[in-house]
Structure formats: structure tokens, C-alpha cells
């Protein structure tokens, strides 16, 4: 398979959440998200109530995939940063370690310069965590609950 299984454990999640929480404060952002390249939300912080996070995650991943496709046509390896400017909100999208996507939504209470600076630092930290997570996932001795799943468990999912 081309990309390994994404798994999230409590320990790494707490580290990631701490970085995301800090980034919201330090960048003075409205919302910060981390999304995997397949469009699944990993962590979020800030004013997330106002936003349909599942939809945003899927669209962001689609956007990154499309931009990656454009990069390939231009023989670039990847465009790692995108910025979309609106009247009220702006979105800064950063590809981290070619594996996850860091999204910052901010308004005029802050500046693009500050967001960029804080994103850069957070990306480096996140990259290290995801690197370590990947090592853990690829460990063949890793325990999973799914080996225990029975056919009945799967059938029961649909018996309603």
C-alpha cells in the first residue's frame, strides 16, 4: 500500500492538541485544524462550534490533492503552503511532512506574517510527532482490537 495506516493514540493526541491549542493563542487565530491527507480530522482548537469541521476537512484534503496534482504537472514536488484571503476570514493551509495538513483560520485581529511565523514553528514540532507515530504504527508487534472482531460483530452493525 502506498500510504500507511493512520492511527491516533492518546499520548500523541495530547501532544498534538497542545500544539494546536498553543497555535490558536500565539497566532491569535480563530480556529486551527489538523487533517490527514485523506480528509479525516485529527485535531481542532479554537472557535470550532461555528464551523462544519467534517466538511472543511474533506474539502481541504481535496484542495491539497488538487494542488498536488498541479504541482506534479509543473514538475514541482508539492506546493506546501496556500493562502486564501476573504473579506472577514482568511485561511492558511500548510502541508506538514507531506502527511498531514495544518489549517489556520484567522481574521483581522492578527496578521499573515504572525500566522506564518507560528505555523512554521508548529509544523516542525508536528512533523516530529507524526514521524514517531508512524514508527509506532509500523511496529509489527502493535496490538489492535480489530483482530478480535467477529463476523457477527460486523453483521450486527446492520441489524437495525
Amino acid at each position, binding site marked *: *500500500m502506498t500510504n500507511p495506516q493512520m492511527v491516533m*493514540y492518546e499520548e500523541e493526541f495530547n501532544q498534538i492538541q497542545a500544539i494546536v491549542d498553543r497555535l490558536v493563542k500565539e497566532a491569535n487565530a480563530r480556529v486551527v485544524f489538523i487533517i490527514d491527507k485523506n480528509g479525516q480530522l485529527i485535531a481542532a482548537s479554537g472557535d470550532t462550534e461555528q464551523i462544519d469541521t467534517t466538511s472543511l476537512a474533506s474539502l481541504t484534503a481535496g484542495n491539497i490533492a488538487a494542488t498536488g496534482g498541479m504541482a506534479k504537472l509543473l514538475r514541482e514536488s508539492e506546493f506546501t503552503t496556500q493562502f486564501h484571503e476573504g473579506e472577514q476570514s482568511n485561511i492558511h493551509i500548510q502541508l506538514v511532512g507531506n502527511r498531514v495538513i495544518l489549517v489556520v483560520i484567522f481574521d483581522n485581529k492578527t496578521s499573515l506574517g504572525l500566522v506564518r511565523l507560528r505555523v512554521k514553528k508548529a509544523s516542525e514540532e508536528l512533523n516530529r510527532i507524526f514521524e514517531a507515530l508512524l514508527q509506532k504504527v509500523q511496529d509489527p508487534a502493535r496490538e489492535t482490537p480489530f483482530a478480535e472482531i467477529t463476523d457477527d460483530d460486523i453483521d450486527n*452493525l446492520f441489524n437495525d
Partner: protein
Amino acid sequence: MSFINYLSREINCKIVYYGPGLCGKTTNLQFIYNKTNPEAKGKMISLATETERTLFFDFLPLALGEIRGFKTRFHLYTVPGQVFYDASRKLILKGVDGVVFVADSQIARMEANLESLENLRTNLAEQGYSLDKLPYVIQYNKRDMPSIAPVEELRAMLNPGNVPDFEAVAVSGGGVFDTLKAIAKLVLTELKRSGG
């Protein structure tokens, strides 16, 4: 690739509906959306042209219930069918856990079905996947139309590997959930087999 979150105790899987233009992929998702309880679904997103043809993808997040204390969430995607959207189709196949091939049963669409299936194999291979190894089911849609091919004929042409297949009338919903359940089951069974 499925995403297992031990913290929120969720499994997320990606299922892609593939097939020629106008075979009924978007209609499948719309029916599922309309028949699902509000608490079990997210918003359905359609990136469509002004004429309602799918431009990039449709997306429907769906919660199917719990298994061993893990919530199962399926993200359903459709691809745009028209030949010239091949680049978009490739992108949507990234990280796929299961594929539904929706065939158009109309005799006039046989070539389009074959072409699309061939295109699916090629695009999967480019991503390092093989259709023979992925959870995969086939749906023969539009069984209500007048000039349709018999199922045996469709089967012989499109399903040499004998994967689970279903007749459907997606506009009124016949076969839609049977297809979804079958692919969801295969995806979970694969997760079990590969040990997550």
C-alpha cells in the same frame, strides 16, 4: 487508508463510488443521505457544475454504529464520470478503503461501463492498489429502464472475479443500501484481516 483513533474510539474508512458519467453515483449518495437519521450523517457536499454534473466529487460522511466499542464512520465519495475529469478521479482514489463500481444497465452504455472499469483499474494501479485486492462490489443500476442488458450479460462482462454484485434502481432506492452494506462489511472484514 482507514484512520483508527484510539482516543475518540473511532474508525474512519473511505469508500469511493466509481462508474461512467450519469450511471447514478450521485443518486446513490443522495438516497443514502435522504434515508439516514440526522444524527448519523454529516452534510452532503457536491462540487458540481451549473448543470448538476459532478465536477470534483460528492462527499457524504456517515456513522454506521459501534463495533467493539469503536464508532464506525464511513466517508462516501463519488467521482466525476466524464472522461476529461480523469485527473480529479485519480485524486479521489487516494487512500481508498473500498470501491463500489456503479454500472449503467442500459445496453447503449455497455462500452462506457467497460471503459470506466478499465480506467478504474489503471488509476488504482497508479496509486499502487489492485482492484483484485481491495474490498470491491458492483452495482447494476437503472434496472427500471427500458433497454437494459440482462444481469447475466452484465455479470459476464463486468464481474469476471465474481465479487458481490447487486441490481439497483438508485432513483427510488432499490439496492442502494444492500450495496452500501456489502462494501462496508468487506472493508471491516479487511480491517480485521490486516489487523487494523
